[in-house]
């Protein structure tokens, strides 16, 4: 089959954005552009679903590879998917339509521009997950900054300008070193094609520096402690849809990058830097969990919990075991769903009371029972209760960690307890307790579109909690291949080779 399905996935949202841009609409016709956006994103979702079905899960190689000459004699536009990237593409195309649905309630002005920004962002996000060339990857990775900067800055809260700048400059600073590394790789090996680089391997003596350069970019984006401080600010100020995209997908770019590039291209260096990553991940898990406990702002609390959860992800990736990496990927998908849902839940009450302070709420269970139910599912998902997708991810990560280092695994397990503490406490303070506040009493329960979006997220969280097989199936072969590439014997051979 020669239909360029991946390129269509990348291009479709941009075409939709152009369509919305060129069709002039007055205020009353805003709705129509929303339906266009919804249609496009849904079409993209079904296209990626089709891709997942057609995708052959038993093959190691990249599939649906498209290659075209781009910068002649230097960089080729090359895209393709393996079992890992296809899940992230699915996650992206699943979350984006949900964002488009929620737009109605949260965005008061310039709806059209907002939809265009989201669609363009989707193009870049999908591009990141399926590019098989370092330069193409960098291009998509960086380009995502532009729409996100505008989303935070135009539609954000009070300190939006500060947060938008912080977000942009932090990420840009992290990424420029990666660009140096990418160009260096080109001069060392003569190609930036990821598949070829996997085969060629990179000389061990260069790997440490290159690894650090990539790490600087991914660590900021993940975000890892101590460069995580942009995330709470960006989350707090971004509009609901922006927070959702940021937490659910943009953070996953870095986790994906760690697996695809740090592990894949620099196995020697990855092994060398394992203690560093372990330390930073553990600090992230424990420290940010403690910080999350003390938060008074709901969004900030969830933002810090994201940092802690991403700590599990980096920990799992660098255990370099089958369970660890599978767990990390599972954790990323699960966190994508759960954190998106939690931000939507915050958005629901914020739209009604216009505050995110936890102590302004309380006793919502008696006036918003439907809300209390879905919120409970997401809370349990976030703290990793068995039966939700969060459990599978954390469990696999810890299993991988126990295999390698018992101390690390024990400390990380403490993080699970802390996670349960802050999530349950948050739930208790918002949903239970006495109804004291007068305006809280006036709040109405979920509207129909909120029910739809939230239940759309409840279903996969519970489904994959009980039956993780489809996801594990899809990544199993690719992860095994990744482990194989990081095999110690092979690494030693490489190290001796220079």
């Amino acid at each position: 089959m020669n239909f360029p399905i991946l390129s269509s996935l990348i291009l479709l949202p941009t075409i939709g954005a152009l369509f919305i841009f060129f069709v002039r609409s007055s205020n009353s016709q805003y709705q129509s552009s929303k339906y266009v956006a919804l249609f496009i994103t849904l079409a993209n979702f079904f296209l990626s679903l089709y891709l997942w079905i057609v995708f052959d899960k038993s093959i190691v190689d990249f599939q649906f590879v498209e290659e075209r000459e781009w910068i002649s004699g230097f960089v080729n536009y090359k895209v393709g998917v393996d079992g890992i990237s296809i899940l992230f593409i699915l996650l992206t195309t699943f979350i984006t339509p949900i964002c488009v649905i929620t737009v109605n309630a949260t965005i008061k002005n310039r709806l059209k521009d907002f939809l265009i920004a989201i669609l363009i962002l989707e193009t870049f996000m999908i591009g990141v997950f399926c590019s098989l060339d370092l330069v193409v990857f960098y291009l998509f990775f960086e380009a995502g900054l532009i729409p996100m900067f505008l989303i935070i800055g135009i539609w954000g809260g009070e300190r939006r300008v500060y947060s938008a700048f912080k977000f942009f400059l932090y990420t840009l600073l992290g990424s420029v070193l990666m660009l140096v590394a990418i160009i260096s790789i080109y001069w060392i090996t003569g190609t930036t094609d990821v598949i070829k680089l996997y085969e060629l391997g990179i000389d061990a003596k260069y790997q440490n520096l290159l690894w650090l350069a990539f790490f600087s970019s991914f660590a900021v984006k993940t975000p890892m402690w101590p460069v995580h401080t942009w995330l709470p600010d960006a989350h707090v100020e971004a509009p609901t849809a922006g927070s959702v995209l940021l937490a659910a997908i943009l953070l996953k770019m870095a986790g994906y990058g760690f697996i695809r590039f740090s592990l894949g291209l620099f196995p020697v260096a990855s092994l060398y830097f394992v203690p560093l990553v372990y330390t930073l991940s553990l600090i992230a898990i424990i420290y940010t969990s403690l910080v999350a406990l003390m938060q008074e702002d709901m969004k900030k609390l969830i933002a810090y919990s994201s940092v802690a959860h991403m700590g599990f992800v980096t920990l799992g990736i660098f255990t370099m075991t089958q369970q660890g990496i599978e767990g990390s990927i599972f954790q990323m998908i699960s966190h994508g769903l759960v954190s998106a849902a939690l931000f939507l839940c915050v958005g629901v009450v914020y739209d009604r009371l216009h505050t995110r302070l936890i102590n302004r709420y309380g006793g919502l269970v008696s006036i918003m029972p439907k809300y209390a139910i879905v919120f409970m599912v997401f809370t349990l998902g976030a703290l990793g209760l068995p039966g939700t997708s969060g459990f599978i991810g954390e469990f696999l990560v810890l299993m991988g960690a126990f295999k390698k280092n018992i101390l690390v695994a024990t400390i990380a397990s403490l993080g699970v307890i802390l996670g349960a503490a802050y999530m349950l406490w948050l739930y208790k303070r918002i949903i239970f307790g006495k109804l004291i506040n007068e305006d809280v009493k006036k709040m109405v329960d979920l509207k129909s579109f909120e029910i739809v979006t939230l239940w759309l997220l409840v279903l996969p969280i519970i489904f994959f909690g009980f039956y993780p097989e489809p996801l594990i199936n899809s990544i199993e072969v690719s992860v095994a291949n990744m482990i194989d590439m990081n095999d110690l014997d092979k690494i030693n051979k490489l190290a001796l080779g220079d």
Partner: protein
Amino acid sequence: MENLQLIIPELFISIMIMFLLIFGVFKKNSSQLVYNLTTVSLVAALTLIINLDAQIQSSLFNNSYNIDSLARFMKILLILSGIFVMLSSSKYIQISKISKIEYPILILCSILGMMVMISSNDLIVFYMGLELQSLALYVLASFNRDNLLSTESGLKYFVLSALSSGLLLYGCSLIYGFSETTNFNQIMVNTKEIEYGLTFGIVFILVGLAFKISAVPFHMWAPDVYQGSPTSVTVFFALLPKIAALTVFIRFLYIPFYELGDQWQMIIIFLSIASMVFGAVAAIGQKNLKRLIAYSSISHMGYALAGLSTGTTQGVQSSITYITIYLVMNLAFFSCLFMLKRNDEYYENIDDLSGLSKNHPLLSLSLLVALFSLAGIPPLAGFFAKFYIFVAVINEKMYFLAIVGLLATVIAAFYYLRIIKIIYFDPEKEKFESKHNLGLKFTLLASTFFILAYFIYPSGIVDIISQININ
């Protein structure tokens, strides 16, 4: 008999200068007509140059005037930018009451000077071209003679430029003294051994040239001149002299002084780093858009010099690509500036842009594209410009230069973001006029489209430029 066919474009422009001068003097109220005729003659000159054989390689007048692929490409670039500058600023000079017949003629004179500079293969020819363009530019800078800032900028430019020309000339005489010739190729042959006098000569020449492209520490004139001159002249300053000066840089470094790479490489690296960093830091506090773009162009010249400092053909090609994309980005930026007009008055402060996006969505989108591109964010053209430079720099293992350059981009991103913040995040102000002449609209549309769509087919320009041979 020399083959005069090769310099028909130059001859044509000279004749047009004389013709238009006489025509303008004898025909009353003909300033607009002369302006239009100038644009037309630039278009004609452009077609004449394009008609030259692309792979041509020959020298005229005792080997002192080079017609080669580099000269051809740079002249096309020069005249093309000239045409777009003329198109975009025609309304501005009418409203600012500087529409006199001398204005377009001076522009033609300076373009002629630049063409001579681009083709020069001899110290004397080079200096002649340089002075022709400079003299015209002095007058242009102070063209709005009733305006204090404009006269100040003209005077400042004149004094400092004369000083740098003096240094340059002194350098030329030193070179002549030690190599016994003024011809570039002969200098290369005669300067196999390094002597102190020669090194001094190189330094003086580089200082003079650095002044012309406003590289730090010889940049002091640029912010004042950019701000004080009429905007139509500022855009001219920002684009055309850079092309000519960069070409001369390439010729000097890669023909007469090529063997002496050790002598000049450190100087160029220093100029490059200083310009990139200083331009980025100094622009942060600016309130005037023209002043800001002056610092921004200082910074951009730093990147172009970084390409030259590699001493490789690839480096030169990356610099040429850089300057090409730089021209388009600045053209887009200045076209936007020309649109900030309300009641026959032009606005040029950053605060005037406040909330522009609510009243003028298309204009602010173009500015957004231009600014992100100037900041070098992918997938816009500005990213590719920087990318080629860093590919060439890293190829030579000059990691320090590359990392400093990239960190400077992050600093620079801050002030570009600040403008975007004012356009998109701040409360709106009074509307600007939304009617503009066709030439301006076309310039803005073409340049914005180029920046946006560059990533679809980035090989196009690179392929053309890779055919340019330097030696």
